[in-house]
């Protein structure tokens, strides 16, 4: 029978050597292994009737050389590929795709959080068009019917008999007819483009996310 302090010293020496041998492993794994082996030794010790020096050394021998245990831990840590982040289109990506056109601020935040898109994709999602449909339906009418409407006016000066002395137009109205038609057509075209742009952007982002998820995990 040896003294308890000496026995405790042997065990804590062993655990100290194990702890240094486990250095370099992920912290959680290192703690888990150290914890389990600490408990294991404590339980085995409680089964020894007469804890002799030889018994205890025997016990620690059976647990194994710290280097060997750490070596096994290192082998086991390199092998599994399971813990790598999986490249799957998840709820975040789906929500980002739905919300970017419909509820732009939330969608864009998710767009920037998800690893599925690179900087270019994120910029496209954010800026084409900025604000998504919220912008188009709430702000575009203001602009269209406010300041940006084709503006211009004509003035006719007549004499007392009703003969036109002078007829002059300014701004939009001053343009020849075919140019006015062209500008109006361009305006309608721009409006239609703005209407489908969020959908086109969402389709592009979906394509990019699918491409991302099909690439091998690096």
């Amino acid at each position, binding site marked *: 029978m040896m003294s308890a302090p000496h026995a405790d010293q042997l065990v804590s020496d062993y655990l100290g050597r*194990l702890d240094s041998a486990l250095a370099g492993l992920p912290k959680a*794994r290192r703690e*888990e*292994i150290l914890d*389990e*082996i600490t*408990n*294991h030794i*404590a*339980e*085995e010790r*409680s089964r020894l009737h007469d804890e002799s020096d030889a018994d205890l050394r025997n016990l620690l021998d*059976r*647990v*194994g*050389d710290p280097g*060997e*245990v750490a070596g*096994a*831990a290192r*082998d*086991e*840590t390199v*092998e*599994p590929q*399971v*813990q790598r982040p999986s490249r799957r289109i998840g709820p975040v990506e789906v929500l980002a795709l739905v919300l970017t056109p419909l509820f732009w601020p939330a969608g864009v935040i998710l767009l920037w959080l998800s690893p599925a898109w690179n900087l270019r994709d994120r910029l496209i999602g954010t800026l084409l068009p900025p604000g998504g449909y919220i912008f188009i339906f709430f702000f575009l009418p203001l602009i269209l019917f406010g300041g940006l409407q084709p503006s211009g006016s004509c003035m006719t000066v007549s004499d007392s008999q009703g003969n036109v002395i002078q007829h002059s137009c300014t701004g939009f109205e001053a343009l020849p007819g075919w140019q006015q038609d062209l500008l109006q057509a361009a305006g309608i075209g721009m409006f239609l483009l703005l209407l489908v742009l969020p959908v086109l952007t969402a389709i592009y982002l979906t394509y990019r996310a699918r491409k991302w998820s099909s690439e091998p995990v690096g």
Partner: protein
Amino acid sequence: MPIEGLATQLRKGVIEYCVLAMLRDSPRYGGELVQMLRNQGGLLTSEGTIYPLLSRMRAEDLVDTEWREAPAGSPRRYYRLTKAGQRAVVEFQREWVRFRVTVDGIFGDRGGR
């Protein structure tokens, strides 16, 4: 390959599945698994190496764990087979039987008597 190295390689190949198989009937804690393996003889040379193995199998979701009170001392981490673990046991058993039959068929009656 020297025969000593061969034994080590064979042990490494099967120990994981033996541990999984020992969990088929009920969850067990590490010390319990070590004792069972000790009684089977020779599969586990350094008993401490079972813990890195268990930790890896947990990371791979072959087992999960729960804490249970011990009669004395600190609580024990019990290891339990997951669905994936159960499948792995069944698959290993099928492979192992096929393997054993093949090798026995080649060695015939002259094997190790």
